């Protein structure tokens, strides 16, 4: 009712935010200070940032990481959305099994997964970088699956599908033009999550000897630690700011039912 209108100053909350703020931003600011030091002049400047963005490899590896992440998102959506829709509609016996399997990657440490991945795949798989999106897909699966599952649970899926089907839409159209827009909140969350995870994945990538943006940073660090720090700051702060701004300015999603 009207209770939500009451806005009060909350000392415990304010204190919590203050402490969290210090905890999060002090190291960040301190690191930022370090990253703009220029040892030659003793002052501050954007030297290392400029060095980083003028380095050819910088964009080469960013683009490479982005397209790998993009492929991972595509695999996730193409495989998970239809499968989950079907699982929700059919009450198939395999649903419990798949629910369980989708959580399994949480159990396996990535390092251990890397060991398995290194010895298991036939050469034609190991020789193509396209193995990475599939492996990233596995790593993101518990989160992506859960997010889509919640989305599908919060809508009257059966009614919606039956309505779309009786209006003459085939399964493809039903999923792309009806179901996905209705659960767009959780689809967006899934995309963001999968993309971010793939973009930042380091352990598996480096242990399988592939080069992506995160592994390139460690390579840079070997002879230009300040450059590596500048790149790290960018890769921490930029997504941090973009996502925070998006949350602050994009209206609350209205589609996801809150039960």
């Amino acid at each position, binding site marked *: *009712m*009207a*209770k939500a*209108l*009451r*806005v009060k100053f909350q000392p415990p909350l304010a204190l919590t935010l203050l402490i969290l703020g210090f905890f999060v931003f002090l190291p960040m600011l301190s690191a930022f200070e370090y990253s703009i030091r220029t040892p030659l002049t003793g002052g501050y400047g954007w030297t290392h940032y400029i060095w980083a963005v003028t380095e050819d490899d910088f964009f080469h590896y960013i683009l490479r990481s982005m397209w790998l992440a993009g492929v991972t998102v595509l695999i996730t959506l193409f495989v998970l959305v239809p499968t989950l829709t079907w699982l929700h509609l059919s009450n198939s016996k395999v649903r419990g099994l798949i629910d369980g399997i989708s959580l399994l990657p949480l159990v396996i440490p990535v390092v251990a997964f890397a060991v398995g991945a290194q010895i298991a795949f036939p050469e034609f798989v190991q020789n193509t970088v396209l193995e990475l999106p599939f492996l990233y897909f596995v790593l993101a699966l518990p989160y992506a699956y859960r997010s889509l599952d919640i989305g599908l649970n919060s809508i009257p899926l059966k009614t919606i599908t039956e309505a779309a089907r009786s209006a003459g839409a085939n399964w493809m159209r039903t999923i792309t033009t009806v179901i996905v827009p209705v659960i767009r909140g959780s689809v967006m969350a899934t995309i963001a999550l999968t993309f971010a995870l793939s973009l930042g994945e380091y352990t598996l990538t480096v242990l399988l000897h592939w080069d992506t943006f995160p592994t390139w940073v460690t390579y840079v660090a070997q002879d230009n630690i300040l450059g590596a720090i500048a790149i790290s700051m960018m890769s921490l702060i930029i997504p941090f700011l973009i996502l925070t701004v998006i949350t602050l300015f994009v209206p609350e999603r209205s589609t996801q039912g809150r039960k």
Partner: protein
Amino acid sequence: MSSKSLSLRNISKRFGTVNALDNFNLEVGVGELVALLGPSGCGKTTALRVVAGLEHQDSGTVLVADKNISDVPAHKRNMGMVFQAYSLFPNLTVEENVAFGLQMRKVTKTVRLKKAHELLDLVGLDSQSKRFTHQLSGGQQQRVALARALAFEPEILLLDEPLSALDAQVRVNLREEIRRLQLSLGTTTLFVTHDQEEAMAISDRVGVMSHGKLEQIDTPDALYNKPATSFVASFVGTMNRIPTQLSDGHVQLFGKMIPALKNGNESGNVIALVRPESIVIKSTDEDANAKVLTRLFMGASSNIVCQTKDGTVVQSLMSSDKSGDLHPGSTVKLEVTNKEVLVSNA
């Protein structure tokens, strides 16, 4: 019995810019069941929460048996409350839930469990006492909540829309059970609901609220037959609103002059408020003043919707066997059976 009377005097409560309670007054006698009825946002729930001590009023006093309890914290007020739904503690069994109030009052385990079983027996759920609450149906959960609220013999029982989350059939059964228990225990009860049928069915008196104020409080019969304001008239039951003229204290309705009952200074163009059962329809070809639009058969009675010559749509409730010859398109003559009729400003 430990039951006590309850008074709310000049209670005001604001949330931001919203006046939830505006100089609100209410008296509930010992053993009485009073319902607060009103549209959502009218302040009825706030009134109940102020009584429970879950909200604190900005001004005014709450008295229990003439003792001011305004500054007594919620957990020291001896009141049992039943919430809308899902208020049972999920980590406790049914009997532990019911015994919780007594446990807080330091009653020994054997005594409180015995009392819990007594209450569970009263609501017909003694067999479920060892189960956890999520294993029960919605109706069963509310029964347990009722038992829990009564187990420590509260001075006052507070019901916050306890039936609103239940299915229609369960609602009807449970409301009768609430009344039966309340009568047999003699607990003073304040019952908040937005469902007028529910309020009318089980209350000694019903208070109709709007914008933080009590519009009228009276027995269900009086409220229905003699609404004090046009808000009450149209909120309680169905009311036809027929535009007409007021002159010499009379209004003309379907060619007949009827004494008008005024609440204020109505004059000139007014709306006459007439219950559907007070309108009788006669099938006729001569001196017809209306035409039948639809007839809804509802079993013993039928709801007939007519349109008068000047375009007003009027509903009538008649016994079905007397309205069998009325069909859409029939020309009819309407008559009002009231001796006097309530009017309000147009």
